[in-house]
């Protein structure tokens, strides 16, 4: 009897203990379940969501590299990509320990007024979602909100984007496409814009010396009116903001500044010497950049006009048509003699001069720095681009651009293929003459020298810059969007959050 009574009492206590453990375990288990679910979201879904953007942007980098090749290495641009309907596509690239995949499409969607192509890059990046195949606990937060799922769209069974918007997001070819495993896909759209050469007044990949103790570099914007020397010292003038952007940028540490620079001065690791107080803008000695050799643009679709083929003495070009920025009148000149005199006239229709576009490729030197040098005359309405393989020599006063807009007369020095050959651009104003010119030079491999005291409107990109005259150099801010593309930069980014 006693044993039986004790047995009953023990069972009662055991039951109480078990019940307590059960209740506590249920509470604890529920908490653990919640924590596990949230951990699953944090460790797997959030990570995949972030990684998929990384993959999409990686795809953007891959596409961007191909676009840059269209300038820097044209023969290998988009090698291995498929081209259909004006769109380049690459097959999916898998990388990283988490098996991220990315693919992209590139299409040329716009030509600017210089005839430079703009590219749109659309890429998608996909990251697998590991862990539990379920949405998070915060999937619904309110009657009209969907918490996590509104932000992180996970494809557990089907690709929601293809099902809702079609593979290209244009509403066409919608389909239920199963996914092999849960995944997150994010899409970005980038726009790669051409970098035009003349974003600074003077840009030198090497050293800089100049311009002369009484010289100065300033700026204006031709679209708001002609150059006026008094604007840069008159803060109340509305054009004042454009008058102090005569930026000089060099990629070495050696810069000897003479005269005044109404703008910024950038070097690569330098300590600017001489008259730093005469620089009105920012002095930054930590602005490195690279100037790639300038290659002759692809001429495979250039249809040359037969004559002339050389500039010997006085030579006049009168194009048979107006042409356009993307399809100018092409000429091939095998020589431009030392004292050659070239005039390019506009195309005239019904007695009216038309805006005429001309591109000339000179396979040798243009003039020389001895004697008179080359003379080039460009009347109003003519937009001339001159590509030269050799050296350039002329007097500043003999570069005549009647329109006064520097963008209408562009010189491009093709970089020598032989690294031992030093290209030169030599301008001499001719004694005491202050007559100058309006033109731009892009010659990243050339040493640029200018003497005398010419009045110049334009911009120059060169290797080493030397000037010992009292040059007055006016940079036209309207030039920052002019000229042939020398590289590309991504200027627009948008994520397709559908």
């Amino acid at each position, binding site marked *: 009897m006693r044993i039986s009574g004790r047995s009953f009492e023990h069972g009662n206590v055991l039951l109480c203990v078990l019940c307590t453990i059960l209740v506590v375990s249920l509470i604890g288990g529920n908490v653990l379940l*919640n924590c596990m679910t949230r951990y699953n979201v944090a460790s797997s879904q959030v990570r995949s969501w972030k990684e998929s953007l990384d993959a999409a942007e990686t795809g953007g980098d891959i596409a961007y590299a191909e676009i840059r090749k269209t300038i820097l290495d044209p023969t290998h641009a988009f090698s291995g990509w498929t081209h259909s309907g004006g769109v380049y596509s690459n097959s999916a690239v898998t990388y990283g320990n988490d098996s991220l995949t990315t693919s992209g499409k590139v299409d040329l969607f716009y030509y600017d007024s210089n005839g430079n192509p703009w590219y749109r890059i659309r890429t998608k990046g996909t990251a697998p979602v590991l862990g539990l195949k379920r949405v998070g606990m915060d999937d619904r937060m309110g009657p009209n909100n969907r918490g996590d799922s509104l932000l992180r769209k996970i494809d557990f069974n089907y690709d929601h984007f293809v099902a809702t918007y079609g593979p290209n997001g244009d509403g066409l070819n919608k389909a239920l496409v199963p996914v092999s495993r849960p995944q997150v896909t994010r899409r970005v759209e980038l726009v790669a814009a051409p970098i035009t050469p003349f974003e600074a007044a003077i840009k030198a990949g090497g050293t800089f010396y100049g311009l002369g103790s009484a010289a100065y570099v300033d700026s204006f914007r031709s679209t708001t009116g002609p150059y006026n020397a008094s604007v840069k010292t008159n803060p109340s003038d509305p054009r004042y903001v454009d008058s102090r952007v005569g930026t000089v940028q060099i990629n070495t540490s050696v810069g000897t500044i003479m005269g005044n620079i109404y703008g910024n001065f950038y070097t690569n690791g330098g300590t600017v010497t001489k008259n730093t107080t005469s620089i009105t803008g920012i002095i930054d000695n930590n602005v490195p950049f690279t100037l790639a050799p300038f290659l002759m643009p692809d001429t495979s679709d250039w249809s040359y006009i037969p004559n002339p083929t050389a500039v010997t003495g006085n030579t006049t070009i009168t194009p048979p048509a107006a042409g356009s920025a993307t399809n100018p009148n092409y000429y091939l000149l095998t020589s431009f003699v030392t004292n050659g005199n070239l005039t390019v006239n506009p195309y005239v229709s019904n007695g009216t001069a038309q805006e005429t576009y001309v591109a000339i490729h000179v396979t040798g030197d243009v003039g020389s720095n001895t004697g008179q040098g080359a003379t080039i005359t460009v009347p109003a309405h003519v937009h001339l681009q001159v590509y030269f393989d050799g050296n350039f020599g002329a007097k500043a006063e003999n570069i005549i651009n009647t329109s006064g807009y520097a963008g209408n007369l562009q010189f491009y020095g093709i970089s020598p293929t032989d690294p031992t050959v030093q290209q030169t651009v030599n301008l001499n104003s001719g004694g005491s003459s202050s007559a100058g010119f309006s033109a731009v030079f892009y010659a990243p491999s050339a040493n640029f020298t200018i003497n005398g005291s010419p009045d110049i409107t334009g911009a120059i990109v060169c290797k080493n810059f030397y000037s010992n005259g009292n040059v007055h150099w006016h940079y036209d801010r309207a030039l920052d969007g002019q000229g042939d593309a020398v590289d590309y930069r991504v200027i627009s980014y948008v994520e397709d959050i559908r």
Partner: protein
Amino acid sequence: MKIKSSQTVAGFTLSEMLVSVSLSSIVLAAAITSGVTLQKSFAAVDNYFSTQMQQIRIIDYLNRDVKRGLVVTTSVDLQSVTMSVPKYIIQAGDPEAIADPETIGMARTPTVAYTTSGWQVNYSPSTTTVVYSISGNSILRTENGVITTIASSTDQLVPKSTDVELANTEYANTSVTFMPIFSSSGSVASRSGTSLYATAYLRNKRRG
């Protein structure tokens, strides 16, 4: 025999009863207190995890919009963030949607324009304004008047953002803190210990 014996064994004295009831009460009180405390603790842990997820969500939302933004402005008290983002998707009421309702939800094609600030890429003449703000215990995201509650917690979530302007772009620093409910003291350290930081750069050139 049995009855007699049973009566003898089953009997409790008053003192025995008092002692046993007292002990039982103490044990029961201890058990109930432990249970309630455990439940509170579990609830606090659960809440902490939940609020942490909301911290992450706030940061993720903000970063996504900052990266595609054209300009970001933080209020003086650092409690709200306003940004403009490209109008990439055609929405109901847009001119394209009025002309062709089928285009709702579709992406726009970019256009290019040259301005005094240089070349610009636009998807629409106007941009979309996105505002992040605090309303009571909720963090709201408002896009073109449509309000989405992206976080809501009794743990006093507080996001603070600052935007830093650079030469051509800017970046936004964001921190989100909350006051854990199991911290009865309400000390500064309790809140600062939950800080989550993030920095996101605008991918676009800043406008304005």
